[in-house]
């Protein structure tokens, strides 16, 4: 086995420099705990997952600009949710959430419903009503 590839890379990685524990076999054949940054292949696949999410966010923004989806669609995608998951967080049936993804329906939403979505996405209801695209939860702080 190529030993280089089994050692975690030394550079800070996608984990914002978080040093994690890994078990690794030492030369005497015993597994011990080691602290280090992520392993290169892991960083690659993590990076890949985020590229995919960013691609989806880009597509969502285009749909909103084209007027085929409400800004709720952006918030849902940016926070990695599906209509079913968003429905569970807002305690509504998922067909209703799907309906709210249409601009026509979304514009006519009541304050209480907007508030529910605002709470989940941690933005102001006014932002939602104005169709502003704020950063997803994991980037806002």
């Amino acid at each position, binding site marked *: 086995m190529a030993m280089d590839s089994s050692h975690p890379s030394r550079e800070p990685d996608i984990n914002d420099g978080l040093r994690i*524990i890994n078990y690794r076999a030492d030369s005497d054949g015993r*597994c011990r705990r080691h*602290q280090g940054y992520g392993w290169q292949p892991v960083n690659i696949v*993590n990076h890949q*997952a*985020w590229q995919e999410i960013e691609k989806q966010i880009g597509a969502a923004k285009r749909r909103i600009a084209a007027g085929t989806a409400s800004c709720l669609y952006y918030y849902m995608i940016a926070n990695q949710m599906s209509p079913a998951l968003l429905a569970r967080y807002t305690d509504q049936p998922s067909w209703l959430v799907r309906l709210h993804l249409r601009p026509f329906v979304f514009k006519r939403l009541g304050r209480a419903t907007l508030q529910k979505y605002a709470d989940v996405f941690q933005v102001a209801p006014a932002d939602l009503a104005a169709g502003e695209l704020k950063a997803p*939860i994991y980037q806002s702080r």
Partner: protein
Amino acid sequence: MNDHPCPSFHHRQSAHCESGVVANLIYREGIDLSEAMAFGVGRGLFFGYFPFIRINGLPLVTYRGVAGQIIKQFGRLPGCSVHQQRFGDRDRAMAELDGALAAGRAVGLQTGVFWLPYFPRALRFHFNAHNLVVYGKQGDDYLVSDPVFPEPVRCPAADLARARFASGALAPRGKMYTITVDPAVFSCRPHIEAAIGGVCRLMLASPLPLIGIKGMRFLAGRLVRWPHRLGRERAVLHLGHIVRMQEEIGTGGAGFRFMFAAFLQESADLLGAERLSDCSKALIQAGDGWRRFAAMAARICKERRQPGDSWEALADQLRGCAAREETVFQDLRRWSKGPR
């Protein structure tokens, strides 16, 4: 850090959240328990491929037992009692947590990673089976010993409440647990044999083709066909997902194989069983195989193929892991059943 009845907690960073939490909670009760031992006796090792359960739209591959497995196993051991609760109501769940903290307890929680603000941005997926320990509260912040972090962290109450009531697959429903240990009775040593036997049963003798060694072979068969069935782009996403499940934070590397090897080694020293030490070395080999699999998969994902990299070669690599683990677990099964 001194204006609370339970302000200090012996935080030990761990590779995996659940075994780390159990080891740290039991350590607090005055018993020196390593993470690897908690993982082994808790029967943490597993393999399962469940294409009908989706995480972010990708099939679930797991290298460890179901969330809560280790805690449940420890609750069954004599001298160790686990008090576990789930809640329907968020306010009650938080009040109950505050009550336990005020009584000077350290409390284990199951949470959704996506809602934890102290997590690195890149790891905030909707993954709902992350365990951590809360050991105090200061103002509006909870003091959190999150086993995958080097130091204790703080988490605002509103965020912790959201994380405890994350929805979706493996929803925690506010799950909290405390562990009490009677040091006069409790010992891991007599349970090692049964734990190893239990893991072997799951890995070798499951009737379902998606579990254990059979599951690895099943996945190998499926994986080869992904590029044709899903197209290159989706296939690569599926592959990346397998590697993430195997190597992301909290696996200890090589899909928990190295951690289990450490457990076998520790058990070998404890029981004076040379054979376990041999099995440990063989399992490390299997773990190395998993890491080669991950490295090749990452090269394929990144279109940085080396000679010999292909989907067929990946499947062969996976079958190689299955074959190696089959030998290890057969040997372990003979050990756990046989006379010594």
